[in-house]
């Protein structure tokens, strides 16, 4: 493949998703300047690999590269953050239904839903930032970037069942955190 072809493919396949790439990198690194570095690194990887890109879901393909680039970047620059990720694997398969106990028997008036409806942007963002990284990735990909379960499974390189349990736990943690503010 000639350089011109690669350039044209890059413009067509990668560039439309640059906004999503930046948003995911910012959520993972928590920093705008770091996110730009990660996106640049990811785009270099994507450009080198673009001759072998066989079609399919371009956004999922790029976000997979961005996510890997972001974790490589974190491991190099902030190793403390990444070591915490491994501890999570043991707990994430644990009971996803735990938070249901707090819901009580009255669903006519759901106090949690009312509190969430009142939460402002800063509160929501802080609660997402406080999530363990792999829960946060899954939540951001689904509830902010709008990917479906199969796409998230592809990007985070886990089975759909793991996506489901991570997503449920991530949301339950957010719901608990936001509800706890008012107690």
């Amino acid at each position, binding site marked *: 493949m000639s350089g011109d072809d690669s350039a044209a493919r*890059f413009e067509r396949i990668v560039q439309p998703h640059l906004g999503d790439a930046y948003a995911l990198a910012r959520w993972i690194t928590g920093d705008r300047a770091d996110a730009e570095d990660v996106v640049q690194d990811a785009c270099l990887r994507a450009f080198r690999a673009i001759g072998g890109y066989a079609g399919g879901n371009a956004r999922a393909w790029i976000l997979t590269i961005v996510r890997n680039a972001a974790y490589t970047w974190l491991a190099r620059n902030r190793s403390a953050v990444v070591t915490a990720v491994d501890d999570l694997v043991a707990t994430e398969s644990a009971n*996803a239904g735990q938070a249901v106990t707090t819901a009580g028997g009255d669903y006519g008036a759901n106090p949690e839903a009312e509190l969430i409806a009142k939460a402002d942007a800063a509160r929501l963002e802080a609660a997402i930032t406080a999530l363990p990284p792999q829960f946060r990735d899954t939540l951001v990909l689904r509830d902010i970037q709008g990917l479906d379960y199969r796409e998230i499974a592809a990007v985070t390189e886990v089975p759909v069942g793991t996506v*489901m349990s991570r997503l449920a736990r991530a949301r339950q943690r957010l719901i608990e955190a936001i509800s706890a503010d008012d107690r």
Partner: protein
Amino acid sequence: MSMDVHDSNRDRAVLLVHAYVDGELDPANAIAIEQRMASEPALAAERASVEALRHALRERLPREAEPPALRERVRRAVGITRQRTQPTWMALAASVAIAIFASSTGTWYATTRTPSAGGNVSDAVIAAHLRSLMAPQPADVASSDRHTVKPWFSGRIPLAPRVIDLAQDGFPLVGGRVDVVNRTPVPSLVYSRRQHIISLMAVPNALAGSTTPQTVQGYNMISWTAEGTTYWAVSDLNLEELQMFARLFRAAPA
């Protein structure tokens, strides 16, 4: 009821409630979990909390555009030097930034904006979309092949629209139809995203109106202008994915 909270059946039901809210269940599982939510208040409460959370994240969390210089920086990094295209991309990045800014106030606009020249067009556009949803089929020519859809228009309206295949990006083409906006027949393309239907109308600029992203009765609308045509995208899809659809459509080669 508190005895079985930790059993695997309950855990599975909770995951299914989340998948139900996400529209990821097949009809049989959806009906099954609806029945359980009707009889188990804890599951119904879970659904209410998850829906409230999703709504809050979608409506309240500002979506931050990438820095305008990032696109050029990336281009330089991979060795693409195309000065000619720079203004186009910069303009596009700027318009996306404006659209994102405007989207956070979209609901406010829809409820408070004064009627303008464009009000009639956007009303006609949303009415056409709603009519198509009530019809047995949202498209008069149902095909995912753009080489079938584009010629279908040729015999019906003076100018066939750009028809772009976005299936690889998760927006498969469903078909096309002709709508009437201010007594002028206009081509509409129909795309889908999961279970959501998107109508994309190509309105001649002579009829152009407001191009502010709007939310009307729970439907999001985005419009943009290119080559003498104002495009209107309408859907009950969330605004960020509708904006992605618009970006992809605009960026696609003709």
